[in-house]
């Protein structure tokens, strides 16, 4: 089963809507609470990245009996140095975003920690796509 959500750019009022919806769906199929937690947190981080850095994007969840794949894609500025972006504490978030408690540079590392498989594709000027796989086990 596949669901898709649009993430509006810069709209903090709607921050976390996609991840909250995905979490609700997963509760209905009865997978372990801890797995739901990992998926919700990973998706939320990705959703916030889209909202803050990329002017919006798209969250797709493919819910299967063995696991869930979350694909978060945007047509934002792209990431010039992925290795650097993967370091904890490294962030390009503007000050107003940091003032709201975001932009601590934990987004990508957290997403990698949460997921069983993490892949990021990014091209400067074209955008980024993150694929996270979660197994229920």
């Amino acid at each position, binding site marked *: *089963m596949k669901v898709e959500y649009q993430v509006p750019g810069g709209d903090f009022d709607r921050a*976390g809507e996609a*991840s*909250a919806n995905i979490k609700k769906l997963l509760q*209905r*199929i009865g*997978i372990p*609470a801890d797995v739901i937690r990992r998926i*919700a947190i990973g998706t939320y981080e990705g959703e916030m990245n889209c909202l803050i850095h990329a002017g919006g994007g798209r969250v797709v969840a493919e819910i299967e009996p063995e696991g869930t794949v979350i694909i978060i894609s945007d047509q934002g500025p792209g990431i010039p140095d992925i290795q650097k972006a993967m370091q904890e504490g490294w962030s390009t978030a503007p000050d107003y975003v940091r003032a709201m408690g975001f932009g601590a540079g934990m987004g990508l590392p957290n997403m990698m920690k949460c997921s069983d498989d993490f892949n990021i594709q990014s091209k400067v000027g074209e955008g980024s796509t993150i694929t996270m796989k979660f197994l229920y086990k």
Partner: protein
Amino acid sequence: MAENYLHSVHVIKEACNGCVGCVKVCPTEAIRVRQGKAEIVATRCIDCGECIRRCPEHALVAKADALSGLQGYKYNVALATPSLYAQFNGNVPREAVWQGLKELGFDEIFDLSAASDYISAEIAQYLRQHAQGRKPLISSACPAVLRLIQVKFPELIKQVIPVLAPGEAAAVYKRSEVCQRMNLPREEVGIWFVTPCPAKGTNIHQSVDVKHSEVNGSISISSIFAQLSVAVAKIGDECKKQDKITTGSSYGIGWGAGGGEIKAAGITNALSVNGVREVYELLEQVSMNKMPDVDYVECYMCAGGCIGGPFAAENRFVAQKNLDKRIRRMQRLEPTDREAAMALNMNCPGFPTSEEYVKVLEPRPMMQLDDDITVAIKKLGEMEKVLTHLPGLDCGACGAPNCQSLAEDIVRGAAHETDCIFILKANVRKFAQGMIELATQIPLVNEHDDKNLAEKGSDKDETK
């Protein structure tokens, strides 16, 4: 008690007019209106009491025990909650309330604020010992919040602190203390909550946080308040002659309202959240890991904290004023240092520590569509599809709280698409159009006969 005893809130069918008010406010979507009457899905009800507050017909009520239950025991102890004191002006001595309770039939009173002092210290200690790890930690004091976590946020169970609620700890302490002092067998001592909370009553029979509740019953404040307030007013200053009983500090008393727990435990990097929607939203955010920098959250299901409970007699803002006044008066006589003030009141040798009695919260997820994950995903897909047909107005006319719940009921086989008034109307219109179309298609050969029949009919009328 029966194993299927899961909640104390229930519907008085004769009083219910099916308005769906309760259906809409229930945080776990546990109520449906069927055949014009509200029905509670037992496994989902968390006894928050939101429906009780909402119902204009008073058709939703919660079970509590009657004072007549005291007759079943030789010796009865009342656990006086801080929220009970808040029903009275802050200058009414606690002794007057105790004396009043005795006139109602209790043999002895235990001041729950004393237990709150012990539990506050335990919370502070637990937080010190668990400074690392998943944050924020969540208070275990409100049984309705614990039930909400079981049903809707099982992923947060690990963050709930394994500390007893003051009332449960007090009951453990009081039963053994009384039995020893009075030389009574355990079963002859009755321990009673005097409480504003319907969830406390459920917890006695089906506890979520303690292995075995030592409380025998819960008496709602509202059911005894008329009698009690008359007694208290009569007693006045007479009460000063009373034997001294163990009491708690002003910080223990503070537990009666929102913010009191974290203040008593001395946790500064903490949030105090109360009210159904507020707690729900907060837990949602915690489960997304949105606030890892907060140490502790104190959550109470009732707006204002325990003083806002459905069984309270006094308006909760007045109760807050009363409680604040009592705290100010007590603090004048207490050491200014919080810990010193609390230590001064800790006079319960052998007061139980939670470790021995606390039960790990069990997940009780009630949202899953099927035990078989493949079937559940299939049903989820169907549900999403059904949802696209529904108007999305969340009007509640179908008896479910919103379109999503109706979609869920439909795929579970508990409802039909035409339960939606808009789909029903569309279907009726389609059906009516079909009838008209059919009418125009009646073969012409018959039209002649129809005319004849009509004429014959009118002839008959004329001959009459």
